Every structure is written in C-alpha cells, then in structure tokens.
C-alpha cells in the first residue's frame, strides 16, 4: 500500500468515528512500547513501515503530509530510513494489547462511572452509555440531553417548570431530583436533636442546636472532652486547661516571634558566609598569582609560554596546552613533509646513478670492441715482423748472443741495448695511441 491510499483511508475513518481515542482518560498505565512515538498514546489503528517501525495511522498521515520533501522523500520518523510502502498488517498481539488498556468512559464528566477496555469504548458509547449527550428530540430546542433522560414519547425535557413549594424554576429533566432531594423548602430532621426543620434552615439550626456535640474550647491544648452544647459552659468553668489558655497563647506568640528572628539571623548568616567565601577565593587567587610571579622571576631565560602557564589559572593552562598541542601538530606535519622530500631525492639520485652507470658500461663496451679490433690489426701488422725476426735471430746467432733473442720475443726487457729490441716497443706504443683515439 502506498501513501496516497493511506490518506484516502484516513479521511474515510475520520468521518465515522464518534470517540476520539486520544483524548480518553487512560486509567491503567501502559508500557512505553505500546505507545505511538508521535502522539504518545497507545497505538490507534497501527500501521507498519518497511523498517518495522509502527505508528498510528493518523499520526503517520500527518507526518507524511507535513514532510518538507513531499511523499517521495518521506523517511521513517524513528530511524530516518527512506520508505515508500507501508503495511496495514501488524501483529494481532499488538492490537489486542492496545485495545485491552482500561479507560474511563468519555462521558465520565456527565456521571458515567464505567471503566472499560479501550477496544469496547466505541460500542459502549454507541449502545450502552446512558450519559452520552444526544440532541434534544424537539426540533426547536438546541440543548443536549443525556441518553437515559430521553423519555419514550420523545418530548423536549428542557422546558422550565416552577417548583410548587420553593418557586424556583427547574428544567423538566431535573424536576424529579429537585422535588425529592434538592428543594430547599423540604423538611428534614436535625441529626442531633431530631427536630424537624426546613432544609434551607438546617445550617443555622446546627450552629445553635443545644444537642449538637461540641469540643471543649481548650481542645487545641489537649482537653479531650466532647459534650453537648448545653453542657459545654459547665465544663468550661471547671476545665483546668481553659484557665491555662491565656498563658499558652502568650507562649505561642513568643515562640513565633523567636522563630521569625532565628530565620532572619539564618539569612544574614548565609549572606556573611557567601561574602567570606568570595573573600577567600579572591585571596587564593591573589596568592596564586604572587607565587606564579616568584616562580617566573628567577628564570627570565625561560621560554615565554612557560611563564604564561605559571601565571594564569586553569583557563590559561588549558590554552597553553592547546597551543602546545597545535605546535606539536604543525611540527609533526613538517617532519612528514621533510621525510617525503628525502625519499623523493633518494629515488631521483639512484635513478641518475643508474643512468650514468648504463652510459659508462656502454662506453666501456665500445672501448673494448675498439681495443679488440686494434689488437687484431697489431697482430696482423706484427705477423710479418715476427716472421722476419727468426731470420735476423738466425743471423745474430752467428754472433753467439742468445740473450737478446729471448728478450726480443718477450718485448718487455728494457735492459738490452740491441736495435732489435726497440722496434716492437715502438709498435706497442703506436697501438696505445690508437686506443686513445
């Protein structure tokens, strides 16, 4: 069911309801869980939302119509979860418990003393309650009359009749009661002396009736005697408490005046105490300020917030704490930023180093290749010389110098002054120049 249908239904219900269940006088106490959170009455025609929260149909209806966002944006008043559908089906148990709560008949002001379960109020009022006000059957009369006072022939009961004895004008519906009980011209008997008097004179009679029982005038001081008025004067003559009466009166008035002064004094005392407390607190503050100053005086090199902390009372100290806290916070932030920067730099440096390394490696590979090719060339150039050398060595062998041949083949020894040694060295020098290029 959606909200439009609910509104339509609510309007239909409103028309045919006689008793407003919310204005009933609930006699028995009821559990908070049975109470609609909007009207705080036990649920009246409960409905349930998607989120399982229950409200009176009428309350929910007024909550929906007043919802700022309209029906589409209505949220559950209890949990604010958006809801579009509602269910008329709530547990029978809940309805039964709400209907079982005892209430007074709505016409209790008219005299109905019934106390009934709430579920029966409608039928009670409709069918059984004799105190329900109905329109007077006469068309010209606009007064209302109690249902039980309606007579069979449906006459108007509001015509005024004059009482035959007291000449008062009484409405017909009250006439019987007036005549039998209320009319002041009726005779009645005094409960004490049993003489018959008029009802309107009864009060005066009781005040003077000699038979009426009266207390002794000293009863407030403890005289227990209760006698008839006729005998009262004889008792009062002999009553010891009556003679004490004036003395008691004087004592009472003195006590009263004493109490008054005591109260005055108490008030003044309170005032003084307040003043004293004020003085004490100002003294305390001033001493605290003094000690604060002596603490800060010897150490002028202290940081400024230290001295301010010592100076002021709790409020300032809390201020200083918050200041320190904020300082701490900002420092922490700075440190965080710095660490960030450091890691960034680190990463960048390592990247640069790696790039450089790669370049150098490449260079070295090139150089290696060049060296290799030059070695090949040198080898190629050396080859014919190496072939020539054994021939020359063969020639020198004739001279018997074998040492120079060994040195020539190794090309390392600087010792030999022989011309055969110089050539390979120059060649190797040339090779070195080639690598430099």
């Amino acid at each position: 069911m959606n909200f439009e249908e609910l509104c339509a239904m609510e309007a239909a219900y409103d028309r045919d309801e006689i008793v407003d269940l919310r204005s009933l006088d609930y006699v028995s106490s009821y559990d908070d869980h049975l109470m609609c959170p909007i009207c705080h009455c036990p649920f009246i025609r409960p409905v349930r939302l998607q989120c399982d929260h229950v409200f009176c149909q009428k309350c929910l209806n007024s909550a929906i119509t007043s919802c700022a966002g309209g029906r589409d944006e209505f949220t559950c008043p209890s949990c604010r979860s958006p809801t579009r559908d509602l269910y008329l089906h709530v547990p029978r148990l809940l309805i039964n418990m709400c209907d079982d709560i005892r209430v007074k008949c709505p016409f209790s002001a008219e005299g109905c003393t019934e106390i009934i379960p709430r579920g029966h109020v409608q039928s009670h009022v409709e069918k059984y309650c004799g105190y329900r006000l109905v329109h007077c059957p006469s068309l010209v009369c606009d007064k209302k009359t109690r249902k039980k006072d309606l007579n069979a022939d449906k006459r108007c009961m509001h015509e005024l009749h004059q009482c035959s004895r007291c000449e008062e004008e009484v409405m017909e519906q009250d006439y019987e009661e007036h005549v039998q009980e209320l009319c002041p011209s009726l005779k009645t008997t005094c409960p004490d002396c049993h003489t018959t008097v008029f009802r309107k004179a009864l009060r005066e009679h009781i005040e003077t009736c000699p038979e009426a029982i009266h207390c002794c005038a000293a009863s407030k001081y403890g005289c227990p005697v209760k006698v008839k008025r006729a005998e009262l004067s004889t008792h009062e003559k002999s009553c010891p408490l009556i003679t004490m009466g004036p003395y008691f009166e004087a004592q009472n008035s003195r006590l009263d005046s004493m109490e008054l002064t005591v109260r005055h004094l108490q008030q003044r005392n309170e005032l003084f105490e307040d003043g004293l407390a004020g003085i004490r607190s100002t003294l305390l503050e001033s001493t605290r300020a003094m000690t604060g100053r002596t603490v800060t005086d010897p150490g002028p090199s202290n940081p400024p917030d230290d001295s301010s902390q010592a100076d002021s009372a709790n409020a300032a100290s809390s201020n200083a704490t918050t200041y320190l806290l904020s300082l701490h916070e900002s420092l922490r932030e700075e440190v965080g930023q710095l660490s960030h920067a450091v890691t960034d730099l680190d990463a960048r440096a390592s990247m640069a180093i790696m790039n450089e390394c790669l370049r150098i490696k490449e260079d070295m590979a090139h150089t290696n290749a060049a060296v290799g090719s030059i070695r090949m060339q040198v080898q190629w150039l050396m080859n014919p010389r190496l072939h020539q050398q054994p021939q020359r060595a063969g020639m020198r062998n004739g001279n018997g110098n074998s040492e120079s041949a060994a040195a020539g083949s190794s090309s390392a020894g600087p010792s030999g002054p022989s011309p055969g040694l110089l050539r390979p060295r120059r060649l190797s020098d040339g090779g070195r120049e080639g690598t430099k290029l």
Partner: protein
Amino acid sequence: MFATKRLSKELLKMQDHVPPGISIVKSDNLEEWHMDIQVLDSNPLYQNQIYRLKFTFNSKYPIEPPEVQFIELPSTSETPRPIPIHPHIYSNGIICLDLLSSAGWSPVQTVESVCMSIQSMLTANSRNERPPGDSDFVSYNRRRPRDINFYYDDDDV
C-alpha cells in the same frame, strides 16, 4: 489539541523522571516551557554551569518542531544563566542545530530528547568560540529562529 495532549503526556512523564542534568523550570502553560540543562562530564568549557533553554510550541507540535533557544539571565540575578559558548550557538541564544529545523525534525523527538541532544552537543565541543559572523548576526537578526535558513555544514559536532 494534538499538541496539548502530547505535551501533557510528556510533562507527566518528565515529572515522574527526568534524565540527569535536565530539569523543568517552567511548564505551567502548554505553549512555552523553560528547561535548565547542565553538562555532566568535566568539559572545562561548561563545567559547573547551568543554562536555560526556552521551548516555544505551536499547535502543530510534534509534527512541526518547537522553537528552541537559550535565554540569558544576568549574572546579578539569583539564578544566573549565561549563554554557552559554542561554535553553533549565537550569543543571542539562537542555536544552529539541524534537529531543530523543519527538515531535520522528526515527530518522534520529545522535549527530553531535544535537551539531551543539546547536552551532548555541548559535551562534544572543545572549541571556545562563537560561530563565524556572530556579532553581525546578533545585531542584524530580527527574525525568529524558525524563519532562519541555516546551512548545516559541520557534521562533526
């Protein structure tokens, strides 16, 4: 009619029991109530202070929210009641709380729950300041709290 019934029920319940730190000062008619509230924990901003709230109900309560604001009694009076310092409470007592706007209000709220919300709003605060633009607002505002459109931008208080 609806409002008076609901309010008398609330009153009955609160006369029976009120949460700690909340007391009814004046509820003799069903249009304007005065409540005293107190922050119970040791928040140094509000410790040992009592504040007075004024609730004004219209006939559509609880469907419509009540008007709630702090009122000030001078410190020379027998019961001094200052306006608490809070970034959402203007120095003329007007409270910026979305619960009290017609958009944030829910008919489920009661006087008691509103008091408790304001209590906890004070408890949770640690900033010793008035809302921005307080002096301007206080000197120019002639509107009633319900006619003011607040922007509820701060969700953490």
